[in-house]
């Protein structure tokens, strides 16, 4: 799939952009804080319904304006589609082919996107939250139906935490039956979230090892395991382990006013040739691992959807060395992705000749 036209209005520092695109490589150069990442963010929101940054809705709207608009025309498997996102201070509304979107599933099935940010290179060493985000993004793009499950899981967790918090702050006595009613929702959707993550990981594994062997990062084997965030008492039933874990952590949860066990606490562990990557892999090896994960993500989507996804590269080359960048670019060429890439222009990226090159300064886009 590829973007044919992108229109933005009052999005962050961008007042107005209306640009047609016909090539596979779209380079956006500019100095820092001129709007490069904002433009990529708009594309990302139109593809996933969400931003990759923590933001309030009002942050998206240019100062002194009521709303901002993202309109994306795409071609996928020879069919043209249009995505309209309207961001207001209190709500976000998305239309796909002029019909209001009721579940993100539809958007995720239509828009296949992989994004790569400098922060991603911290995936192995960084916080578990970053790794959960990564595997959840994969699960969402591999199985668009999971969008409603993830949403229901988050809702269940918030509801349960709100009961615990009101009790902890002594605003309400604890209604054990009420807590139990929401526990069951948490268990139901949490088990599904866990399963989606496991399945997504299995899909990734098929390719990651291959890339790591190719990069000479491992000689022998790669192991990636999913820490479930729940002590597994019963290997046959995640649900019953989860139920038991919730019962056992009941007291501590009440004291802390939040839920301390569950898939919201899970993590990914990487083992390269039997050594834990987080502590033992060099920075170079860790970066290769991240690159391999990203390439695997691209491959799985291509395999599942039957066409190459859209790729966003936000200033990645500033952090990735020449060899790895070249490898990445070659893989992109082989897959035939449309790629939107931002750069400060300080390094020569060796981008294929067939490209659009835009400059963005103070939110204004100009084709060079």
């Amino acid at each position, binding site marked *: 799939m590829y973007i044919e036209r992108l229109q933005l209005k009052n999005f962050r520092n961008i007042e107005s952009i209306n640009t047609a695109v016909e090539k596979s490589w779209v380079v956006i150069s500019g100095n820092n804080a001129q709007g490069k990442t904002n433009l990529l963010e708009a594309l990302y929101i139109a593809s996933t319904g969400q931003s990759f940054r923590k933001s309030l809705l009002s942050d998206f709207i240019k100062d002194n304006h009521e709303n901002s608009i993202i309109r994306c025309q795409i071609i996928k498997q020879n069919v043209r589609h249009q995505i309209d996102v309207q961001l207001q201070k209190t709500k976000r509304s998305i239309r796909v082919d002029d019909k209001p979107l009721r579940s993100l599933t539809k958007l995720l099935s239509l828009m296949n996107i992989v994004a790569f940010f400098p922060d991603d290179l911290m995936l192995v060493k960084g916080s578990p939250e970053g790794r959960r985000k990564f595997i959840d993004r994969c699960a969402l793009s591999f199985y668009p139906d999971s969008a409603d499950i993830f949403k229901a899981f988050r*809702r269940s967790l918030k509801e349960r935490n*709100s009961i615990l918090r009101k009790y902890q702050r002594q605003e309400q006595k604890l209604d054990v039956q*009420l807590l139990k009613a929401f526990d*069951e*929702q948490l268990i139901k959707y949490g088990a599904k979230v866990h399963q989606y993550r496991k399945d997504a990981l299995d899909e990734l594994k098929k390719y990651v090892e291959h890339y790591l062997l190719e990069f000479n990062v491992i000689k022998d084997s790669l192991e990636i395991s999913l820490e479930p965030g729940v002590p597994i008492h019963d290997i046959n039933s995640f649900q019953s382990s989860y139920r038991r874990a919730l019962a056992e952590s009941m007291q501590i949860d009440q004291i802390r006013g939040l839920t301390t066990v569950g898939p919201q606490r899970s993590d990914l562990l990487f083992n390269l040739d039997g050594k834990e990557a987080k502590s033992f892999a060099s920075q170079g090896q860790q970066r290769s691992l991240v690159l391999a994960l990203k390439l695997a993500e691209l491959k799985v989507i291509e395999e599942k959807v039957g066409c190459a996804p859209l790729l966003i590269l936000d200033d990645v080359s500033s952090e990735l060395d020449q060899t790895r960048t070249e490898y990445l670019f070659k893989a992109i060429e082989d897959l035939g992705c449309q790629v939107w890439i931002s750069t400060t222009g300080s390094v020569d990226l060796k981008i294929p000749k067939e490209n659009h090159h835009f400059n963005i300064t103070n939110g204004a886009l100009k084709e060079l």
Partner: protein
Amino acid sequence: MKLDPIATLQLQLARLPGIGPRSAARLAFYIIKTSQAQGKNANLAEDLAQSLLDVQKEVRLCRECQNLCTEEYCSICRDPRRDQSTLCVVEAVPDMQALEKSGTFRGLYHVLHGVLAPLEGVGPEELKLEYLLDRTKNKSVEEVIIATNANVDGDATALYLASLLEPQELRITRLAMGVPLGSELEYLDSATLSRALLERKDMVNT
């Protein structure tokens, strides 16, 4: 200072759920235009204003089932042919109307006017669940069908209700909803809804 009546109308309309500023403006101009023209909508503004006042003055909750009605008891509760032994608990009036349209259900209803949602401050008291328990205890109810939506809050409400009703030794059932049938009752067609009702499942407390 007197407020601009056009702007005021737009602001009032925008207070309605699902109506953004743009739709509000469109509706406002439509009302203004048609009210000044001839034709079938000539009295739209006046008719609309009267309807709104009537609704506010005359509509209240049925003393028995909490349905909306204009008398003490709604037409369903007053109908002696309805099966007094089954009670169907719904979240909202539109859900009840959808069930009525399907024609499969002949019992009585109970409208909760919401579901449990601790995050939004809706607990058992807000839903007046005590009143529902009194109803099932004192009337000849044998089965309670819980027809809240099949989402997080709807399912939690069903479980909670089942645990409250358990001591009364009634049959407690749940509509067979959710994937692939669809999780929101209001949007189901009559055939699917009938099926969800006929295939309802007994709730067993875990």
